[in-house]
Every structure is written in structure tokens, then in C-alpha cells.
């Protein structure tokens, strides 16, 4: 355990954590645009800058990737910090005047308008890198990356061509703070040629990455599930049995636990890849329970139960 000070408040915490994490646990709000718990911190947006004093050295550091150290003093609301945040948001607002998220965060740090000497652009991407990092770290598809250098940097697929790597999972669209990454699902996509048109059937389009992939249907109910390439990708990456990916979420069978037979050994809970099973005490007995919201219907628990209580 180490002790640090944030805004004059003494806090005991563990080593290896970032200032942002510790501050959040203490209820101290530090605005940020490019941090996400599922991703490694990057320090791209610089909005989470704080003033750090160690010994007689005071510096401005990004709290998202600066690790706490014994005796460190952190100030999150000095004038110097506010100036950095204001500049960051004013510059981002000049770049992207339209997205609501940017306007909201700018207002939060006290920037409502861009000074008239600054020219306005009509960009939507703030280059926070959330999409790039999600694709690389969570999805592990590495379909998109930064391209170009200097002020022309942008996010793109290689050569701006539809790539084999993109599985059209839409995670990038989900994390994008300005919602500029567009994902569309079509029930029946049509391509119009000079001599007629062609029906492509159900398709998912990732507009920014020029990826258009056919969607797979549930073998049981016939409803669309997800792009075929995404399901194949998941099948290869995960330990689940391949036939699971032929069914939609609703048609997959979920475990029923025979409470008479279950002895509460907890082996199913330990081995569930999705943490969908948990032990609970009921009427003085310990039994396992399944939360279908987390369950993917992979049937691993069925194989693992020593007393065949799960079916």
C-alpha cells in the first residue's frame, strides 16, 4: 500500500494503478475522451491532464497512463490544468464543431465557443484512437490503424480498400465518442449495374471501412445473427463448440440445473467462460444458478458437471 494526495485528500492505494483509476474510486471527476476500462491507456486526447508534484518537481501529466507513486501529490483543478483542458477542448471544438459529445465535454471544462482567430473545420474524428485500440486489443482483428503523419493523420483500413481483416463486428462504431463510424444492416442489399440489378441478400456495411459482408441466419428460427466472417472469426478465437455459432442468441439452449442433483461443488462456475454461473445460498443449501444474460449457450458446463445435474 502507498499513500498519495489528490486535491489535498490523503488516499491509501495500491501500486500499479493509474491516477485516473484512483481518483475515480474516490469520486473525483477527471474529464477524459480516450480512456476505456477495457483498453490500455493511450494518453492521446490529453484532456485528463493533472498536475503532479513529486519531490520538488511539478509537472503536468496525463492521469490515464501515469502510475501512482508513494508520496505523490496530485492536483486536478489548478489554473494550469484548467488551461490545458480548455486548450484541448477549444482545439477539438475547432476541429469538430458538430458532435454533441465534443460540445458537451467542452462546455464541461468551460469552453462554449471557439475564439474567432481560430478557423473552424468540419471534422468528426478526434483521433482518440478508441476504435483502433478496440480493434487491436479487444477484437484482435487489427483491421484499422492510424494512417499518414503530421496533421494529416487519420484512421483508415490499409490503402482505403475493403480489407479481409475487418469482420464488421461494429465494436469501433460502439466506442466512437463522436459516432462518426457508421454501421448499417440491410435486409436485402441491392447492387445496381447498367444492365440490371443484383440482390445480395442481408448485408452488414461498415461505411468507413468499405466492408460489406453477408449476414448469417439462425438455423432454428431464421432470424439474422451476425456477419458470417465475424462468426467464423469468433469460432476460431474462442473455445466454444462451432455449432453454437449456427444459432441466434434466443435459440441457443441455456442450462437448466436440477437442484435435486446439484451439490454446489462450483466446478461449472469456475469453468464458465462467460461468468454466467454463480453459487448462491438458498434455504441453507448452496446451489449454482445461471444468468442467461451472460450465457452464450456453449454447453461447456454440461460436459463439466460431475453429477450430470446440468442439461
Amino acid at each position: 500500500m502507498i499513500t498519495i494526495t489528490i486535491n489535498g485528500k490523503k488516499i491509501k492505494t495500491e501500486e500499479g494503478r493509474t491516477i485516473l483509476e484512483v481518483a475515480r474510486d474516490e469520486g473525483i471527476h477527471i474529464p477524459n475522451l480516450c480512456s476505456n476500462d477495457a483498453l490500455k491507456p493511450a494518453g492521446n486526447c490529453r484532456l485528463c491532464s493533472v498536475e503532479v508534484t513529486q519531490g520538488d518537481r511539478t509537472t503536468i501529466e496525463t492521469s490515464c497512463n501515469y502510475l501512482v507513486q508513494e508520496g505523490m501529490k496530485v492536483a486536478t483543478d489548478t489554473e494550469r490544468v484548467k488551461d490545458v483542458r480548455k486548450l484541448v477542448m477549444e482545439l477539438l471544438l475547432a476541429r469538430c464543431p458538430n458532435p454533441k459529445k465534443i460540445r458537451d465535454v467542452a462546455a464541461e471544462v468551460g469552453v462554449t465557443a471557439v475564439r474567432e482567430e481560430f478557423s473552424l473545420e468540419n471534422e468528426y474524428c478526434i483521433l482518440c484512437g478508441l476504435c483502433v485500440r478496440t480493434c487491436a486489443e479487444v477484437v484482435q482483428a487489427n483491421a484499422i490503424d492510424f494512417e499518414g503523419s503530421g496533421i494529416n493523420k487519420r484512421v483508415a483500413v490499409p490503402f482505403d480498400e475493403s480489407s479481409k481483416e475487418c469482420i464488421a463486428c461494429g465494436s469501433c462504431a460502439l466506442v466512437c465518442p463522436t459516432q462518426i463510424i457508421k454501421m448499417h444492416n440491410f435486409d436485402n442489399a441491392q447492387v445496381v449495374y447498367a444492365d440490371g440489378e443484383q440482390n445480395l441478400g442481408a448485408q452488414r456495411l461498415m461505411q468507413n471501412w468499405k466492408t460489406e459482408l453477408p449476414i448469417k441466419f439462425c438455423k432454428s428460427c431464421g432470424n439474422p445473427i451476425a456477419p458470417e466472417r465475424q462468426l467464423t472469426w469468433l469460432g476460431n478465437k474462442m473455445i466454444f463448440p462451432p455449432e453454437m455459432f449456427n444459432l441466434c442468441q434466443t435459440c441457443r439452449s441455456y442450462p437448466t440445473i436440477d437442484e435435486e442433483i446439484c451439490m454446489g461443488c462450483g466446478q461449472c462456475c469456475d469453468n464458465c467462460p462467460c461468468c454466467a454461473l454463480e453459487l448462491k445460498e438458498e434455504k441453507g443449501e448452496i446451489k449454482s444458478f445461471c444468468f442467461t444474460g451472460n450465457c452464450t449457450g456453449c454447453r461447456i458446463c454440461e460436459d463439466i458437471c460431475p453429477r450430470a445435474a446440468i442439461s
Partner: protein
Amino acid sequence: MKVTNEKDLKALGTQARKKMSEAALRIQVGTSTCGLSRRADLLKQALEAEVKKQGLAADIVEVGCNGMCYQEPIVDVIQKGRPKITYGAVTADKAAALVKAIKSGSVLKEHALFRTDAEENVIAGESIPYGTDEAPQPLKELPERGSYPFYQKQQKIALRNAGLIDPTCIDEYIAFGGYSALAAALAMPAMQVIQEVITSGLRGRGGAGFPTGIKWKTCSEAAGEAKYVVANGSEGDPDIGMHRSMMEGDPHAVLEGLIIAAYAVGASKGFIYVSTHYPAALANIREAVRQAYDYGLLGEAVLGSTFSFDVIIDEGSGGYVCGEETALITTLEGRYGEPRPRPPFPAQKGLWGQPTVVNNLETLAMVPAIIARGGKWFSGIGTRGNAGTKVLSLNGSITRPCLVEVPLGTTLEEIIAIGGGVSAGKKLKAVTIGGPSGSVLPAQSVKLPLTYDDLNKAGAILGAGFTVIDDSVNMADLALYFLNFFKEETCGKCTTCREGVKKMCELVGELCQGQGRQGHIDLLKQMSQPMIDGSLCALGKTVPVVITSTLKHFAADYSHYIKG
């Protein structure tokens, strides 16, 4: 052929020295990029043909640049038993006259610059005299190298062999004491090598000026499965060619320094980062590494010791930001060149998370001299706390653009004097040191001594580029030039740097087009401090310095553009 002990190395050196000194006639042509740009290649061909025609036997060798880039193509003539004569601006059509003069034993007066009575061997601390017995009268009339204005204030350590030896020949490097420092280092415990570098007071020559010995010590004490050393040959500044000249003229000096560094910190693998913009430098350093492997100075059991070391040459695309050590490490890992936050420092966790020492080429080239002559000797050069010499690339509005190496503590005025002063008819307005990242120093600061501390106090950094600016330049235009450079070279990671540079560029651009108002200048001033605070690496932190320093010293240049 493997060299397995110090004795064999010495024998090799003596043999090579003998070969060099016993040649009846040795003609050295400077064929660095600066020489080639003045067609030194044609000159060499012409000389070869002419020597053959006039029936002389001569060794014509290609050497690096001796620093006098303004006198290219440079030719050194060494006749047995006579001092060396250096000729400048010898174009191919002068070849016949030159060879004729050599044959008749006289001097081609209109091109002769100076004579060298004795060559200095920095590593051994001795001077190697040329014979002076049968020197003709015109030769005696030439100024000696030591009294020649260009050399008077200079002291060569990093550039000790540039222009003196054939860079593609390891034997000639060994002849001037090459690799003897490595042999000496291998005989010491690693800790003692580090101690020697700490004693020398050597500081990183990349600009930040961090003590090299302390960096090595941190790395050697850090825990890791493997350790790495990296020679930082990135040179993204416009208009300078210090690393290029060093690798073209004396690649082995860098390599030897790198091997010593590796031994000191316990690294088994080293990288030399060279920009692909320097094809000749790349070719020379590749050849140097190949020869070092041949001689057993790299690979398994270096010089017959238990220490093994491999070197990989990494070609970079020469981005400016890749000179920053953490960005350099990221590119070595094969990723987009973006700096990383510190701590952890590279000496603790660098390349692939292992302790890594990143040193500038110039720093490494000094190391063999320190080991051979001792840290005390090195700390005696320069001033207190700022030991040693610094290589500077003099350019801009200067009479003689050149590459010089001066002891730290030399004043800026003296350095400008080496370059022959400000161009004819112009008046000194400012000096920039350290390229675009350095600050702009006004004319009245020429009395400043060139040291890390004095320059830092003045708000500048000690980099390799030394640009002289005359009074015909408007500093707002200069600031715009630098900002345009940064606009392309920022890695684009930090919002403050990427967007800030773009906006500063627009603001100064509008000012320079006469569309600016006082508000533009106020905004530039207000942006500076948050930009410095909000950016991760030295690039983002130094961009506003260009604006603040020019605004501070040359406010009139900005207001000149504001209407009404």
C-alpha cells in the same frame, strides 16, 4: 580472419600504418555526400586517368569530409617524406594541373589551403609526424594546419578520423588506434567502464544533455531478460548533416562506441538506426559491421573474450520525431513512431520492455576516446559540468557552411568566426541552435559560451544545427517555416501538439499575409504554455518555444505585418 587478442590488433595497426606511410604517393579525395554534390566522383576518375597518363604510381583513396564542406571537392596529397597538403575546390578539370604539380614536386598554389606536418592520433594521444626532409619552398610557405583559421579553435574527438582514413577500410581505422579502446574496456570490469564514463562527465549529445554514464548505470542495474543498446542516427532537422558525415567518414568510431556501451551495460544485441535518406552512410555502416564481424569484433566471443554482441542495422524513414528515444524504440519494434510516456525510462523498460540504452551517434563516437585516454582527460576539455567537444553543422547566412567540432565553452561568436562570419554585406540578426526545436537567440547573445547550462538558461538547447540568420530575414517568416516543418513532422498523437501546431501555423500564416490582428499575437502567447504542458514529448513542448522566443526578441517583426 579473426582477431582474438590485443597483441594481434596492435600488429594489425602497425602493419596498416606502415602501409599508409610507406606509400610513395597517396591522394585522398573527399567523397562524402558534400563532396559528391560537387562531383568529387568525376574528380577521382580524372585523377586516376591523369596519374596513369603521367606515369605515376599512386594510391587514390576515398575519404570522408574533413568538415570544410565549403571547399569541396577536397584533395589531400601525401608524398612520402613530406607534409600532407590539402587542396580545396579542385574540380575535375584541375586534375591534370594537380598531378603535374605533384610530379614536379611543387605545389598547385591557387588551390592549396594548408599543410599538415603531423597527424594527431586522438586515441593514443600522440602525433604522427610526416617526413619534412625534402619539402620544397612553396610547401613551407603554406600555413600549418594548427595555424589555419578554420582549425585554430577546433578540437576533434568525435570526428577524429573523418577525412583522414578510408571509411570502408577497417585496417586504416585500426592504424589510428581503432578498437584498442574496446580491447582496453574488455580488460576492465563492466562497472569500471561505466565509472570511467561518469568521471568523464560526458552528456548526451542529442540535445537533452543527460549524463551518459548515469544512463548506462541505470540500465546495467535494471532487471531484464535481455538488454539492448541503440545508436540513434536519426537526423530529421532540415539543413544539417552531422550524423551523415560521421557515418560516411568514420563508421567504425560509432560501432566501437556501441560495442563498448553494450559491454558496459551487459547488452547482447545492438541496433543502429539510420535514415534511408542517407544511402552512402548506410552503405558505409553496413560495410563496417560486416568487417567487424570478419575480424571477430562482433558476434561470438568479441576479441577472444567471453562477451558476445550482435548488431542489427535498422533503416528508418527519417521522421523527425523518431529522434526522440521512446519514439525510436517504438519504430524499432515495428510500429508507428509515437513517443511513449516516461517513466518508465528506456534504461529501465525500453525496447520490448527490456532495459535499453539509446545514445546519440556523436555520444558513442566519443566513448572510445574516453576509454583510451581516461575520463579525467575528457573532463578536462570544455568547461566544468560541460565536458568535451560538440559537433556543429554551421549553415544559414554564413560565409563558409561547414562541420566543426569545438570544445564546449567556446562562445557563439568564435564559432561564427570559424565559419568566416556572416555572409558578405549582411548583419547578424539571430542564431538558432538545435534546429527547429531550439530557440532563437538574438544577436546580442553571441557572447554566450556554447554549453548545455548557458544555453538552457537562455531558453535554447544544445543541438547539432547552428543556423546563422541575417537581418534580411523576418523572424515571423522563419517561425512560419519552422511551424510548417512541424506540421508535417508531428506524430499526431497529442491533441495539443497536432491541433496546436496546425492552428499556430494558420495564425502565423495569416499574420505573414497581412491578414493578422493583435488578437492573433495574443492568442499565440496564450496557447504556448498549455501546449507545452499538454504535450507528451519534446516535439510538442518545443514548438511553442519558436513562437515565444521570436515574439520575445523580435516583436517588431510580427507587428510589421499588422495593418494600421
